[in-house]
């Protein structure tokens, strides 16, 4: 009898698991527990430290290559990094190689610059979407204007005050690539390794483990992983945002997965020795 029940547990229709997860997530979103991640991972800390020590006026490329699908994880990262950059008076150039990112970028930059009284054209610029990332990254090594001669509104990029004395990678102090794609690999290969531009990445939690080798070799100066990375960065810049509020749902979902795995293994052990 028990054996049958345990077998049923092991072969449970996955739709019950889906339902349980939906209930857990819905509950956490409706009734937040207020869990805050204050243990900062080494890679988020290094990313923060690197950007924090850049002198005011340094030019940072923000490569935002995520689409609406990955935006719940990556948008909070982009917001936090943009806030940090503006609070340090850094100049920001935004590029993207994901067609779906353009509207999300506009959304981020319709909010963040205003908080720091930053002005378009003087403190930051948004470049249009480019379909061929490798071509753009290669071109920027010699002349940024070879690929980005105009900003998103068609204005001459050279004439913008934010681009003053910016010619190629030599004038770029940092690249922060927040991507749901493999764009951080491209930035490391074509800008970091080849021209020594420091690169920091922000990726989804699912792809985070894949970036270990780059961190170990210092090809990436730091890494934000998923919503947790965003929450940690928000904690560091002392501006709680979407990342921090998403940690409750994330916490409960993780614990649920752990519980399910333990339950299935207990069932296996009982079945084996029954």
């Amino acid at each position, binding site marked *: 009898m028990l054996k049958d029940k345990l077998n049923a547990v092991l072969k449970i229709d996955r739709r019950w698991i889906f339902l349980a997860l939906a209930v857990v997530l819905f509950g956490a979103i409706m009734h937040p527990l207020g869990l805050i991640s204050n243990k900062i991972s080494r890679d988020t800390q290094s990313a923060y430290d690197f950007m924090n020590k850049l002198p005011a006026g340094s030019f940072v490329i923000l490569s935002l290559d995520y*689409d609406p699908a990955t935006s719940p994880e990556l948008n909070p990262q982009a917001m936090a990094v943009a806030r940090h950059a503006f609070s340090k008076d850094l100049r920001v150039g935004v590029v993207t190689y994901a067609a779906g990112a353009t509207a999300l970028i506009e959304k981020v930059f319709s909010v963040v610059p205003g908080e720091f009284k930053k002005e378009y054209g003087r403190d930051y610029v948004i470049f249009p979407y480019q379909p061929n990332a490798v071509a753009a990254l290669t071109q920027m090594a010699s002349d940024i204007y070879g690929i980005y001669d105009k900003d998103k509104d068609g204005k001459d990029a050279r004439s913008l005050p934010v681009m003053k004395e910016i010619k190629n990678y*030599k004038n770029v102090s940092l690249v922060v690539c927040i991507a749901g794609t493999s764009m951080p690999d491209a930035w490391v290969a074509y800008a970091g390794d080849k021209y020594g531009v420091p690169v920091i990445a922000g990726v989804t939690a699912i*792809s985070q483990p894949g970036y270990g080798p780059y961190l170990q070799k210092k090809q990436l100066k730091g890494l934000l992983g998923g919503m947790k990375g965003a929450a940690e960065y928000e904690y560091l810049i002392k501006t709680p945002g979407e990342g921090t509020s998403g940690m409750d749902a994330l916490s409960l979902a993780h614990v649920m997965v752990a519980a399910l795995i333990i339950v299935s293994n207990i069932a296996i052990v009982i079945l084996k020795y029954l």
Partner: protein
Amino acid sequence: MTKNKLIFFIILSLLTAGGASAAAKKSIPSPALAAISGLSAADMPYDSGGTTLLSWDADPTAPAGTVYRVFVSSLETGGWIKAEEFGSGEKMSGSLDLPFWAWKTRPGVHEVKVELNNSFGEVNDGQVFHFKISKVGGAVSAESAAVSGSTRGNWFRLDRLNNIVMLALVTIVFFWAVSHAKRKGLFIRRIAGLDAIDEAIGRATEMGKPIYYVPGIGDMTMVSTIASTFILGEVSKKVAQYDSTIKVPHYNPVVMTVSKEVVKQAFLEAGRPDSFREDINQFISQDQFSYAASVDGMISREKPAACFFMGYFAAESLLLAEVGATTGAIQIAGTDAEGQLPFFFTSCDYTLIGEELYAAGAYLSKDPMLLSALKAQDFGKLVVMVSVVLGAITVSVCSLMHWGVFAQLIANLFKSY
């Protein structure tokens, strides 16, 4: 008039003398900085032009806080632009990231790369620029005489010699392997995932259900996508032979165009050109999740007998493979995106890992030349394995014996420049 001028000059000189003596009384004279010697400007080798290498003798007596400023001008006189500023202990010879075979370190010399196109835009070969250095330490400073130099584009990256040697070695082994291809048989480890292709196609034929071949979301420049088209060719040929049905939904239109040719050719080779239809290859969407949603929908509706996921995949891998698994299809996956391998392992019957995917075309076609080329791959791996072991031992020994320089030389050999 002359008398008035004389009186004015006398008064002026008295006033200035008084001022000077007052200043002399107030300030304590700083020790003068040593003059800058040995300044020279040369073209920076191994670059595309537009960069000058300035070198001059270091000053070990410079007090702490002394900085060097590098000025550059395109004019004979004046027009100086500050190009660099750094502390007196920085930018010594050897700090340039170049290997020992391409660069001779000169102790006690500063070496600075000046990127002229940062200040002057496009720089032509042979265009002459002028340089001077000033050394500033507190209130005192010293300035060098101006030197001139021009730059030119270079034709060879000597610093990448290690890379070219490795490439040459692999190429030689590759040609040796290919030219000896037909002499004797070559043992190739069995790859279960590829052996199962026949079974999967046979099953589809028996059941009268289609086969889905998903080439992933990579573009045609990616090796995994190229490898995927090789496999598609072999799979299509078998499909044509068995008179089964295949569907190839595409993310990238360039890949679709190439795949169309590959499938057409495969049907032709199998002697079934009449079975080829234009809509075997179908463009879906260049948006990752729209593509996944659409392919998932097609798989759910048509319940194929077999699904192949070969190429580059990202987050959509599990979405595709899980839906395929629920339809009960035989699933064979292959990708070099190692982050997605765990998802394929759990949802597919067989998974090809990275290089197995690259080798699959050769394995399936059984072409002796292609199979022999795999030897070059094994040789490359052997070189890496030996290098890793020897490198680890050498660096450990060097660190124990305090042979830092030797360890550096070894590290130079294996570094990419």
